[in-house]
């Protein structure tokens, strides 16, 4: 059986190709990914896509309804707000601020959380416990409340609110990583790697991390949807991004004053936030089941 190599030409998909195939077989997940990609393109290429400067005010074009309305014009696709700013441009830039900063802060929280969690998981005894519960006090309070407290201390602003949410999201990563690393360290394949002479760092990167991706994806998407909601909530409460900054939550708050005159100034940013969060959750769910299928079939 061994001297023939009949199947040398066969295509062997890499793990990621397999995951991608599984992912694409779910239509809802693919749709979610398309929506998410759409918003990602918005946030990456905002200056190219947006037809107007999001901050430019135009006194001659106040409260123009969206283009599908009878009174709307095609030059302002989503209409204009109370100061005559083009709503479409503001939403495109708003995606950049809200989604972009959320992704950034989730990445920071993930790296910090996984590092602390791994150290806690590999250590034993009191030291592990101390490191594990270092940030536990933050878990007792809802994310938004911590953010409000931090903003109250440091002052309002987008960057401060980002720090606040990062800090609030980190403990979850610490806990999940630690319990995951603990259970994996007891398994025999880790012992086998240890007998191969792997030190703790090699053990983590080569043995445990490949199995941890599924958990990270799940936790990452949960954290990302929380981050988007929190950033826009803080913006809405005037604690996060300051009003001229085109942030979706802040835009929502701006529109509230004129909601009866110009309902689109509230509805469209709100719909954008809703779609972003929905897409993130759908993609996360699809990715999780795809990753699970990859290893179990």
């Amino acid at each position, binding site marked *: 059986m061994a001297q023939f190599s009949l199947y040398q030409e066969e295509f062997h998909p890499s793990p990621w190709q397999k995951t991608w195939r599984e992912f694409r077989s779910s239509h809802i997940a693919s749709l979610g990914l398309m929506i998410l990609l759409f918003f990602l393109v918005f946030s990456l290429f905002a200056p190219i896509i947006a037809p107007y400067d999001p901050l430019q005010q135009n006194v001659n074009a106040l409260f123009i309804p969206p283009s599908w309305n009878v009174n709307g014009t095609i030059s302002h696709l989503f209409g204009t707000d109370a100061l005559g700013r083009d709503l479409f441009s503001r939403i495109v830039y708003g995606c950049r601020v809200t989604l972009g900063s959320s992704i950034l802060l989730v990445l920071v929280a993930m790296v910090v959380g996984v590092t602390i969690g791994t150290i806690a998981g590999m250590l034993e005894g009191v030291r592990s416990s101390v490191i594990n519960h270092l940030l536990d006090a933050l878990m007792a309070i809802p994310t938004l409340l911590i953010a409000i407290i931090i903003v109250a201390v440091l002052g309002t602003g987008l960057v401060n609110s980002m720090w606040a949410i990062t800090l609030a999201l980190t403990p979850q990563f610490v806990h999940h990583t630690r319990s995951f690393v603990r259970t994996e360290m007891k398994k025999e394949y880790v012992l086998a790697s240890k*007998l191969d002479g792997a030190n703790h760092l090699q053990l983590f990167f080569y043995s445990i991390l490949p199995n941890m991706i599924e958990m990270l994806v799940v936790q990452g998407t949960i954290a990302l949807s929380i981050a988007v909601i929190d950033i826009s909530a803080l913006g809405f409460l005037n604690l996060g991004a300051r009003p001229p900054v085109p942030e979706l939550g802040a835009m929502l708050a701006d529109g509230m004053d004129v909601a009866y005159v110009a309902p689109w100034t509230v509805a469209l940013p709100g719909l954008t936030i809703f779609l972003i969060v929905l897409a993130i959750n759908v993609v996360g769910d699809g990715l999780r089941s795809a990753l699970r299928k990859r290893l179990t079939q």
Partner: protein
Amino acid sequence: MSEILKVNQLYFKHCNKKSWLKKPEVFELGPIDLDVRRGETIAIIGENRAGKSLLAKLLVGALKADSGEITLNSHFAHHAYQPSHISHDVRMIFQFSGEAMNPGLPVGKILDEPLRLNTKYNEIERRKLVEEVLIKVGLLREHIYFYRHMLSDGQQQRVALARALILQPKILVADEPFAALDPSVRSQTVNLILKLQSEMGLAFIFISHNLGIVRHLADKIIVMENGQIVESGKTETIFRWPQHDTTKKLILAYQSLVPQQTLR
């Protein structure tokens, strides 16, 4: 026949403290003396909880002994020897070879790991060695891309064997390597090990409850009970003239299952 492993007064104490109110359960292993020669096959038999797996783990260095010494290849090595040392010359096959395979890595990466950590080969040479060892244990080159869940139990066992063999060890320690296999795959694996043993001059220490295989494979048998070696000797001697009560029980149980092979 030269000695390659000598175990001298190996002792290990396992203290299981379940709660501070209960009396802790203490399990003592040893002191154990053992000689392993080149190309020799030693079987460890005994009842459950006799300390067989523990002894195997001590031999490969997965656990640290409390006292005593393990001398490897006539150059002195204490129980706390360097990890690099151990992984080269004494390799282990685990009881559940499926669990000893990383579910998130393909077979190629799993087999690459011991090479990457212990040798100075570059990537192309390592890849070649991995392919060679896969063919040696009767798998195909294509299995490099396979994950754990795609392989059957017998194939997983072969991967575990390949992983143990890839560093060209002198001693192979196996913890019930044949327990989970069906009879035909089991005999294939047994024959494979016999073949490799004659090719590479391996010493093979294995734990088994299947006395038929023990009789077929082993040169020497060690009978353990409660962490002690109660009897040891040549296979045929032990099978024909068992001395200790435990040995007698085990052998009798085996012979009542196989009525043709009565004592003569």
